[in-house]
């Protein structure tokens, strides 16, 4: 049986399909609730994947990833508050449509565009990721070291404005991963005599703290509630005639390309993609004069681009083992929990699982349509849920998730500690995402640095000689990104 047939059999399993349906419903709801989002949604379900098989667990997190990005558009259209930052531009034309009494039509446009963007990027992922992995097979430790340095600089510099704060967060994350047993020498590091720390900090309690608990603390610390418009009446979802979709095909295709390309770049993310696609559509779209007044073309540009990011962002994550943002870092940790190490050997070592993951991604995007139709009728009562109750529920569920890693109170204490750390970081505008990416990348970075130094007789500068042209190119790119980010930073601090 070929890998593809095996993958199809794996996908046809009821457990996998159920995981996709549950993941899509859950992701849409969490994505629609303002302020929550993809990272929190995946973090919450991560403990459930411990007892699941490889394919259903991957399908579950992929479903949550795709649907949470789409879910943000529902609240943007219905209550004038984007559920996730990537839906901010959806609001510009989506909410005016709701005010005109066309909420169902706006949701139809958003759903169709999201499905198209997601499918487009899934196809790109299927073709690009194995090729990139094949190219990167020739990477030695020195090239790997240079690549991780560049990715971390990109993420730190681009993701949240201040390069220095981003780098500090990244270094903090890298350091956290060194706590526990050193893989090379077997020595125990930075445990301060605590036996529980000898195996290092588990990723899930840290994630739960930094993303779930810190989010709760920060949200409760915000003084002004978001300004939502009057509540709309929703009759579900309605699709525009095919001719209207055909009229906007260029914008859809262009936005899908923008979203996929932006997704591949580390540190940028779906919000950037939707802003670029919206701006481009506003500049060159067929109906650009009507933008901001409830023009579906604006909505389509934003939604196609932000969902196209999903497949694009998975290209470096799967092919190189380098996540571009916090969501893909959490996704990568799901694979690691399942005993799958993303990276250049992924498509050689697990071809059938990867084929199943690709099929799952396509099914997840189609499921947006299937689940979106009934859920769009029910979403308003969910959006009206009292915030206090929601926050309390998130705390209970998150702490139970931290407990489920090893069944010990220590992990709950770690989650709580990182909840406070995360809240403080938000207070001083230090991005949290580089911490997680640092934790995920640290073992690979340390190993490649040490191996590289052994190869060059402890001469760090020998990393960047003509023997390693790729490392030189990556180092130059790192320097240029740093210089550009620092220039911007010192022009206007924060």
């Amino acid at each position, binding site marked *: 049986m070929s890998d593809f047939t095996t993958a199809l059999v794996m996908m046809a399993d009821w457990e996998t399909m159920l995981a996709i349906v549950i993941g899509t419903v859950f992701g849409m709801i969490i994505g629609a609730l303002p302020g929550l989002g993809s990272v929190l949604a995946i973090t919450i379900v991560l403990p459930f994947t411990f007892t699941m098989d490889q394919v259903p667990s991957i399908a579950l997190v992929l479903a949550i990833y795709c649907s949470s990005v789409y879910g943000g558009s529902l609240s943007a259209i219905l209550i004038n508050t984007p559920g996730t930052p990537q839906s901010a531009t959806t609001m510009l034309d989506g909410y005016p449509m709701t005010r005109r009494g066309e909420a169902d039509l706006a949701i139809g446009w958003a759903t169709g565009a999201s499905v198209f963007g997601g499918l487009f990027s899934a196809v790109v992922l299927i073709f690009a990721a194995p090729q990139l992995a094949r190219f990167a097979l020739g990477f030695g430790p020195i090239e790997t070291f240079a690549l991780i340095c560049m990715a971390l600089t990109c993420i730190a510099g681009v993701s949240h404005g201040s390069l220095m704060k981003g780098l500090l967060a990244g270094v903090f994350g890298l*350091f956290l991963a060194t706590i526990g047993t050193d893989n090379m020498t077997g020595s125990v590091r*930075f445990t301060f005599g605590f036996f529980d720390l000898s195996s290092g900090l588990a990723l899930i309690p840290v994630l739960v703290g930094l993303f779930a608990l810190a989010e709760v603390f920060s949200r*409760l*610390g915000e003084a002004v509630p978001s300004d939502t418009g009057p509540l709309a009446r929703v009759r579900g979802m309605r699709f525009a005639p095919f001719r209207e979709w055909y009229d906007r095909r260029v914008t859809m295709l262009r936005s899908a390309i923008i979203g996929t390309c932006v997704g591949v770049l580390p540190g940028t993310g779906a919000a950037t993609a939707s802003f670029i696609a919206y701006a481009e559509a506003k500049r060159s779209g067929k109906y650009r004069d009507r933008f901001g007044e409830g023009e579906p073309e604006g909505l389509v540009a934003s939604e196609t681009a932000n969902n196209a990011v999903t497949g694009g962002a998975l290209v470096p994550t799967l092919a190189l083992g380098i996540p571009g943002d916090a969501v893909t870092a959490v996704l990568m940790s799901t694979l690691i929990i399942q005993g799958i190490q993303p990276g250049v050997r992924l498509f050689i070592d697990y071809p059938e699982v990867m084929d199943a993951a690709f099929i799952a991604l396509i099914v997840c995007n189609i499921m947006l349509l299937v689940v979106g139709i009934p859920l769009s009728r029910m979403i308003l009562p969910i959006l009206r849920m009292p915030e206090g109750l929601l926050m309390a529920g998130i*705390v209970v569920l998150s702490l139970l998730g931290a407990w489920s890693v090893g069944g010990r*109170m220590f992990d709950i204490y770690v989650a*709580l500690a990182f909840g406070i750390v995360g809240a403080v970081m938000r207070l001083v505008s230090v991005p949290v995402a580089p911490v997680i990416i640092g934790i995920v990348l640290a073992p690979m970075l340390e190993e490649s640095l040490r191996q590289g130094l052994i190869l060059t007789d402890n001469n760090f500068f020998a990393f960047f000689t003509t023997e390693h042209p790729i490392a030189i190119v990556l180092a130059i790119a790192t320097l240029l990104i740093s210089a550009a980010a620092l220039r911007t930073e010192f022009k206007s*601090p924060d």
Partner: protein
Amino acid sequence: MIKYNRDVLFCLLMLMLNAVLWLEMSSYSKDSLLDYGFDPVFFPRILLIIWAVLCVALTLRARRVVDATENGLRGRRMLISMTIVIVYVLLMSVAGFIASSVLFMAIFAIFVGDVRRVPAITAAFLFPLGLWYLFSQVVSIAPPSPAPWILALFSGATS
């Protein structure tokens, strides 16, 4: 509190943490049998140096003054919610998951979330019980149970 001070305070805090970690690191002795050319703290040492340099640079850069109230911060509410969660975690290690979660959800929703009492108390009972069932029966992960002395106390009281 101004943002200038917040940045500086954060960096000073990070520098103090860095110093503590540096002290811990200096206690490691180099074992030639295990080091493979590098001692185990070779990589963390590099990170701590970069960490310190970034903190100093950020302290020097923090020159813009912004009033924190502009950011819409309600520090007191945040501190209260943190305190309630800390008490909840401590209570969980003693009273177990269900009892502590019911209490936490009710108190948190009513006093921090301004939720009406009836829905808050109903949800406070239903949600932790539902989660307990899901984790213990479906996923086979037993949530935290009460401390042995609490169980002994209750079994003594009933017998």
